[in-house]
């Protein structure tokens, strides 16, 4: 068919014949040494063509595959109709951070994973399309924000400025409440800012979303650690906040607890990424914060999730000679987004799967020199349904490396919980909250995002923020508090 002048309606037979559009990307050889965004975004033609592949199902499975139920079918139809701004507004009804989720959602297990086309062909590139309309909207400068409701005189404090906090703030300020977001770090954005690197999510996009919220009237206060600078009780009793929403994420790094883990050159992924992203150590000495000089070094990252992929690709961009990814299960079990693993491989990252570190070894000055690893094999499926790896006796080997980055996931930071006596936590230290209302055990306090679920995804955190906003608004109107967890 002639993509330049599509003549809808097409028959389904014609639609399935259109190949899935490729995301234009920076050449792998070039991008592995720079921090510019890898994916360049679909063109208008590419987006229109991709949108035409959608069969417009009567009961669209993609919508139920989306954790926040974005009306995929409708916004895709609006792209076909050429009304990109309306398409963006349609997404915004359910997702206020489309430029971000269009880039970082694990679409292959959500909307695209449910797309009926995927049974026989490739699924519609819903993530690409979401990103396309969001970028179109912001380039147009016409972000369709509804007017704020008249002031209710109620004060809401939001703790943490990641996707959960930001989305709750956006909704609540529109409902006429006075909203203040408290952030421990000196910049707003949570993991979107300090964790996910520039080449996947340009910080400009995060700042743009934050500026929109500022324009809507959200007050942001950086450099405030709730639990240290001020406690939740003080916010409510002394500073007059009617409600507190805790969205502090899961920011505590896990280590391996193996010998040599404190050698110079061994990092948590959180530290490594924070230095490079938030503190911009990649631009040292223009920026003051240093990071270990990776140029010409051998770097190994331990883990198989998005964080591990981000760390290893960052090390490569900092000039590492060899970048290894050490993962104890097989590639099929890797939790990272498929696209990240694919990109990493194209960029020359060496995957060492079914391998586990047992010790880090250093020189006399305590600088890392190598890692001793053991080969693993997959045994029976464990509680999570994944086949659990076990070591192969006698298979130890040593790999010379000068930098190691541990990316084994994160846990709950206890700062807020330990200073709020009547806030109930789970066995693992997360905040206990009702899954529907997001109410905690403490009256007036709600919680959502990674601090409730454990490390999850941007879209789930955003969904939790919006759910919390609805529930908070209801509480502020009715003054009724029930259904809290015991």
């Amino acid at each position: 068919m002639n993509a330049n002048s599509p003549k809808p309606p097409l028959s389904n037979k014609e639609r399935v014949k259109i190949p899935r559009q490729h995301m234009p990307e920076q050449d792998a050889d070039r991008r592995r040494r720079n921090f510019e965004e890898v994916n360049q975004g679909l063109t208008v033609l590419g987006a229109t063509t991709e949108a035409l592949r959608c069969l417009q199902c009567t009961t669209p499975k993609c919508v139920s595959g989306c954790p926040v139920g974005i009306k995929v079918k409708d916004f895709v139809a609006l792209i076909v109709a050429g009304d990109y701004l309306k398409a963006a507004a349609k997404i915004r009804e359910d997702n206020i951070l489309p430029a971000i989720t269009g880039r970082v959602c694990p679409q292959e297990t959500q909307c695209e994973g449910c797309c009926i086309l995927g049974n026989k062909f490739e699924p519609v590139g819903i993530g690409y399309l979401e990103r396309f309309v969001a970028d179109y909207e912001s380039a147009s400068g016409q972000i369709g924000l509804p007017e704020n409701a008249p002031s209710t005189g109620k004060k809401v404090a939001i703790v943490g400025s990641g996707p959960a906090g930001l989305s709750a703030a956006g909704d609540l300020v529109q409902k006429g409440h006075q909203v203040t977001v408290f952030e421990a770090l000196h910049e707003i954005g949570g993991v979107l800012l300090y964790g996910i690197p520039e080449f996947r999510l340009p910080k400009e996009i995060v700042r743009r979303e934050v500026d929109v919220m500022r324009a809507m009237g959200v007050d942001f206060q950086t450099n405030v650690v709730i639990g240290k600078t001020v406690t939740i009780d003080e916010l409510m009793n002394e500073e007059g906040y009617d409600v507190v929403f805790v969205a502090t994420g899961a920011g505590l790094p896990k280590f391996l607890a193996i010998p040599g883990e404190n050698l110079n050159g061994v990092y948590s992924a959180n530290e490594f990424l924070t230095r490079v992203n938030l503190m911009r150590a990649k631009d040292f000495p223009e920026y003051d914060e240093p990071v270990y000089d990776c140029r010409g070094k051998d770097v190994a990252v331990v883990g198989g999730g998005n964080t591990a992929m981000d760390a290893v690709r960052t090390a490569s961009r900092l000039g590492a000679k060899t970048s290894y990814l050490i993962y104890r299960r097989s590639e099929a079990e890797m939790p990272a987004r498929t696209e990240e693993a694919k990109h990493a491989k194209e960029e020359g990252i060496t995957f060492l799967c079914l391998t586990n570190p047992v010790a880090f070894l250093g020189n006399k000055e305590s600088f890392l020199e190598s890692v001793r690893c053991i080969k693993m094999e997959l045994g029976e499926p464990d509680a999570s349904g994944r086949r659990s790896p076990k070591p192969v006796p006698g298979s130890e080997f040593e790999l010379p490396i000068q930098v190691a980055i541990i990316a084994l996931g994160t846990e709950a930071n206890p700062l807020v919980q330990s200073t709020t006596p009547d806030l109930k936590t789970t066995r693992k230290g997360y905040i206990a909250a009702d899954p529907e209302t997001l109410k905690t055990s403490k009256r007036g306090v709600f919680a959502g995002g990674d601090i409730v679920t454990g490390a999850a995804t941007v879209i789930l955190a955003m969904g939790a923020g919006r759910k919390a906003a609805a529930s908070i608004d209801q509480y502020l109107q009715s003054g009724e508090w029930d259904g809290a967890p015991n």
Partner: protein
Amino acid sequence: MFPIVEAEFLAPDVKRFVIGAPRVAKKRKAGQFVIVRLHAYGERIPLTIADSDPEKGTVTLIVQGIGKTTKLLNMLGAGDVILDLVGPLGKPSDIELYGTVVVIGGGVGAAIAYPTARAMKDAGNHVISIVGARNKELVILEQEIGAISDELLITTDDGSYCRKGFVTDQLKALIESGRQIDFVLAIGPPRMMQAVAETTRPHAIKTVVSLNSVMVDGTGMCGGCRVLTTQGTQFACVDGPEFDAHQVDFELLIQRNRTYLKQESEALQRFLEQPKRDVDLVSESCRLEQEHPEVRCEAYPS
């Protein structure tokens, strides 16, 4: 942003700052610290809160200029503003009635130990302070520490003031004189703290040190500040900064603090060649603050 209200040199390269930070001033307890970032290209560095005035909403910091960021800070004065300041971080000192308490401060460590010494005195302890410096010029806070101590002993490495020798010589003399010592707090360079730990260990005197590991966030998020004690790996910013001296692996601390030696000396060199760039960056944030109060980066409606 955080205005510098007062600034004065206490010794060459050691400067005392009074900074507006009302929420921190209200909450702070002895032993806690803040993390500051001077301008938009700056690094985050930890500094102990030497004093605070909750009524005026100010905290006092005492800074020794040793590298780029501390030397830049020491070039600032009253009227300048600091872009970011967050705290109070870390656990407060364990203040109890121990009996006789020896508080040892080496170099700028005297400033860091001072608030805890005062709190110990307020709790009813007999406080013996030992202040050590390389020479007479570098002895700081003599008056202040003297005022809250029952006994004040000063040593200089070169003997240019009071007793010649190290703080551990004084400590040893005290112990050997047979006096009952119930608690020792030592703050200073890691080697000094290590020497104090080895001095008190045979006598099983409870000894606490404040560890100066390299930090980024100061909230337990990065693990960069980790130190090894007999309890395992700990994060100095949230589990400390004070630890039982007899449990600390000082060699590891000293090694870890050398991680960025190369970059630190490069940064210092560049700064000393062209200090104006960074001073201008500080003024730039003052200007932005005045022109765009809506995008202010600070925590306080002042």
